[in-house]
């Protein structure tokens, strides 16, 4: 469904992402992990059209979308959320979600109804009339998710929807993400919370210092020395192996 090949992005002298490739199959939940500053968000931004890649190609449902504007990509069914949530602070929860819903529902009533249905799905049904600015962090994360879902995408890119949440809130949001996939939307998610990725994703890519260093099933990756080193530092894999052996 999504094929990104050889994506590269430079900011001045800094190589943020170098020759990174990702493939996402229809109906999957795919994870993208990596330590801080690995270039995950930059990679997302290139796929969703917020940054133009210096090299590489993005193909979505067989169509080359490299360099298209984010709004055009969203109209084709690929939507992203922001790690730093960007609610329309002056509007209520319902109005926020309705703005996403308007993409497929021109009528105001239809959009508001669609917004309410989406709100139920992410667990915001009780807070429809609240100003978005009054939501808790967890509430804002759900709103970010709801707004994106309301555009009725076929692929959703989730940028750290669990960052900043406590363990209970994380446990609550995991079934929501599973529900999104069950509803027919493919998911690509960036996550810091390893455990969450392991329980959600069937396929995981690992990015480190702008390069894709590993790809595979979660269970295999936790044994991959390169991945362990990337997360825990140089020599960690050896030490861990020694401790176990």
């Amino acid at each position, binding site marked *: 469904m999504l094929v990104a090949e050889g994506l590269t992005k430079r900011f001045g002298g800094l190589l943020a992402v170098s020759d990174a490739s990702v493939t996402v199959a229809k109906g999957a939940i795919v994870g993208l992990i990596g330590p801080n500053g690995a270039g995950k968000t930059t990679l997302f931004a290139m796929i969703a059209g*917020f940054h133009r890649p210096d090299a590489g190609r993005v193909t979505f449902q067989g169509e080359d979308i490299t360099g298209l504007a984010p*709004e055009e990509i*969203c109209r084709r069914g690929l*939507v992203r959320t922001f790690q730093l949530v960007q609610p*329309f602070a002056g509007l209520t929860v319902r109005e926020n979600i309705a*703005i996403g819903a*308007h*993409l497929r529902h021109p009528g*105001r009533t239809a959009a508001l109804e669609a917004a309410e249905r989406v709100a139920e799905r992410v667990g915001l049904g009780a807070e429809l009339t609240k100003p978005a600015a009054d939501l808790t962090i967890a509430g804002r994360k759900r709103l970010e998710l709801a707004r994106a879902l*309301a555009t009725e995408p076929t692929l959703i890119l989730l940028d750290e929807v669990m960052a900043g949440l406590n363990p209970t809130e994380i446990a609550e949001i995991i079934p929501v993400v599973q529900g999104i996939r069950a509803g027919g939307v493919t998911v690509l998610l960036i996550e810091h919370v390893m455990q969450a990725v392991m329980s959600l994703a069937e396929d995981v890519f690992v990015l480190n210092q702008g390069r894709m260093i590993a790809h595979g099933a979660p269970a295999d990756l936790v044994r991959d020395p390169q991945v362990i080193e990337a997360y825990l530092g140089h020599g960690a894999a050896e030490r861990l192996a020694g401790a176990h052996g």
Partner: protein
Amino acid sequence: MSRALGWLMLAAALAIPQVSGSSAWLTFWITTLLFAYLGQAWNVLAGYGGQFSFGHAAFFGTGAYIAAILQVRYGVNPWIAGLGGVAGGGIVGAAIGWVSFRYGLRGSYFALVTLAFAEVFRVLANAVAITGGGQGLLIPLKPGVEHFQFVDRASFYYLLVALVVSGVLIARWLEASRFGAWLVAVRENEDAARALGIRVFRVKLAAIALSAAMAGTAGVVYAQLFLYLDAGVAYGGHVSVEALLGPIVGGLGTALGPVVGAILLHGLGEAAKGVVGATPGLNLVLYGVVLVIMLRFLPNGVVGWLKRWGQR
């Protein structure tokens, strides 16, 4: 709540000519309503769209000059000339919007560039022959509905009531339509709007064209009302200032705010005239003071404050 306020105001508006038929009384209401409508034009772009223009005189003046020039120099029927003025205002707005938004101007930069365009138009209108230059342009007196001139003030007054109602309806439409929802999304957060598939540039362009066509309409009506234009009247800085004062005082991004604001400000200006006499500039001093006080204590304007109070 605000719907009730709207009907109340409309009823009051229709009663005003019954209170007194005097020319001064009606002229006061006519100018107040004209600026209420101009304020609504500004409100469409700034209140709903978040783009603060300091140069709405560019659209107002263009509408006024096109209407006047078409009828005076080319003998076009004033109603058709007026339509030309409305379209001209909208086209100038779209053109200025196209260049400004294409190059990503926002905030102070957008305010500055609109101000500069209005100034360029003022200097040009003062210099070229077709506008009558420094002497201005006089529309010959030809009373009659077919000439867009009315013998009695009351007819003009009702025309302005209709215009203001149409402005409020445009704002209400924004509050209940997809275009309006998109416009508000652009005001709140452009990046988030784009991520949700909103074509930000087009939305802003449509908003400035609509806003400018409305400002052009106000200019056309002004020309027909006073039958005289010069560069300072049409493109002067006070026009741009009047356009933004009413909505801020009355309530940015609310349908009735510009109307309430214009009535408050002009009422205050008139009261001050009664107390200390007609000193030029005095009403604007008061407007400026009211603007700052409102920003300090009621940043959501009168209608915004009423709405919050009504929700409690």
